[in-house]
């Protein structure tokens, strides 16, 4: 049972360089509709960059990105991004707008909703993340955990087919991490297709269907969480796990 119009996302042989710095060196990633893929790995391994390439905030030098089996590289990138929600480490809420306006902006301007319609939809999304009562507050007056939940609601309001989470809990105080992870778990169980870049090994292990370990711009190991966490095949993953667990 899926509550979302989820899609299947595939990245094939993605290469990206910044000048002489070869950041992504032939990445393959396949996320089946309604499943959650987590991407783990040391800082600087290219995880966050991979997310930005897959929604074309950064254009790849080489490779292909497919949504439901169809290449999206020739599409208008703005339209592609309306189909892929993204949540950031630093929340990136719009500080000059209220919580409800943060969500309704894209609904009005991109989905063509009226002001009233968009606000209603924003309130409905806020209700899902338990923050309807904060609709008219400014983001600065919310805790980090609340801000991140608003950011998730903002992305969900666009009815995306895939959700990206870029270290969504890394900037949170430890006691606020739980609430955001619980919400992400709900989404995963609700059938959302998700790509989660994370340092939360517990989440990666318990919630994701597939775990991908990246290092230095390549996928070193990929597979079901049980296999990767209990029986890592490569020295690099063994080393990484012994450092973080």
């Amino acid at each position, binding site marked *: 049972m899926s509550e979302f119009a989820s899609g299947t996302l595939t990245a094939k042989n993605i290469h990206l360089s910044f000048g002489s710095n070869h950041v992504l060196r032939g990445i393959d990633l396949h996320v089946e509709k309604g499943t959650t893929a987590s991407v783990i790995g040391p800082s600087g391994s290219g995880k966050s960059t991979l997310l930005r390439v897959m929604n074309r*905030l950064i254009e790849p030098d080489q490779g292909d990105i497919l949504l439901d089996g169809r290449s999206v590289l020739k599409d208008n990138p703005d339209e592609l991004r309306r189909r892929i929600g993204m949540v950031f480490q630093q929340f990136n809420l719009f500080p000059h707008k209220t919580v409800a306006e943060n969500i309704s902006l894209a609904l009005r301007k991109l989905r063509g909703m009226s002001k009233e319609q968009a606000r209603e939809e924003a309130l409905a999304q806020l209700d899902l993340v338990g923050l309807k009562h904060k609709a008219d507050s400014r983001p600065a007056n919310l805790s980090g955990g609340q801000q991140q939940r608003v950011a998730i609601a903002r992305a969900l309001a666009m009815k995306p087919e895939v959700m990206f989470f870029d270290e969504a809990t890394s900037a949170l105080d430890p006691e606020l991490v*739980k609430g955001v992870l619980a919400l992400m778990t709900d989404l995963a169980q609700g059938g959302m297709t998700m790509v989660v870049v994370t340092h939360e090994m517990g989440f990666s292990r318990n919630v994701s269907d597939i775990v991908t370990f990246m290092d230095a711009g390549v996928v070193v190991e990929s597979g079901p969480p049980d296999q990767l966490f209990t029986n890592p095949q490569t020295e690099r993953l063994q080393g990484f796990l012994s450092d973080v667990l």
Partner: protein
Amino acid sequence: MDILNQLAESFFDWEAIGEVLPKMFAVGLPNTIVLAVVSGIIGTALGMLLALMGISRNAAARWIARIYTDILRGLPPVLTILVIGFGFGPVIRELTGSTSPYPMAIAALSLMSGAYIGEIFRSGIQSVDKGQLEATRALGFSYGSSMRLVVVPQGIRRVLPALVNQFIALIKESSLVFMLGLLATEREIFQIGKDAAANSGNLSPYVAAAIFYLALTIPLTHFVNWIDARMRSGRPEKKEPDEAAAVVGKGAQA
């Protein structure tokens, strides 16, 4: 005590000040306000254009904005006003038949303040965290819409104090247009004072002019301080603890 008396007579001849007041109110003050406000508005529009060109991804636009700004900011205001006023005045006369240097005065002030305001806007826009642009684009907005709806409004908000300071400078610089030889009805605060001082041989009309300038600029200065303080502390709003942090999601809502 002779010196003190002499100074008091030169600067605080109340009769001379009283005589110049009607003209200050009727002619000088309105003209100064018109010069400052009109060139402030044009300068703000021009500044916004220059700022957007300055951060544009088009190299030619960036260069044009850079060169314009460097030149106009690098020249003494008095020189810019003279060059534009006397240089373009005859062209305008030919085209429109108007002999008034007033439009040229406004043009010169606008072009100068545009350069300064452009730099103010540019620094404000560039100080907005790049995550804002990224988040807006991730929602599916184009670069242009993202800038217009999210980045630029935040950038402007941040530089409001600097912008008001620039308006204060503009009020003061508007005094320099006297050099263009304005018609009697076009004279602003400074020239009214200057004319009266020349006629009476007493410096008190300058003091009257000074008071008029201060009446305009001091409230603006305090207005800057007020916005500055308000932006620093924000509007007061009650902050609650994150009571719902641990109980969220659809499961917890039931």
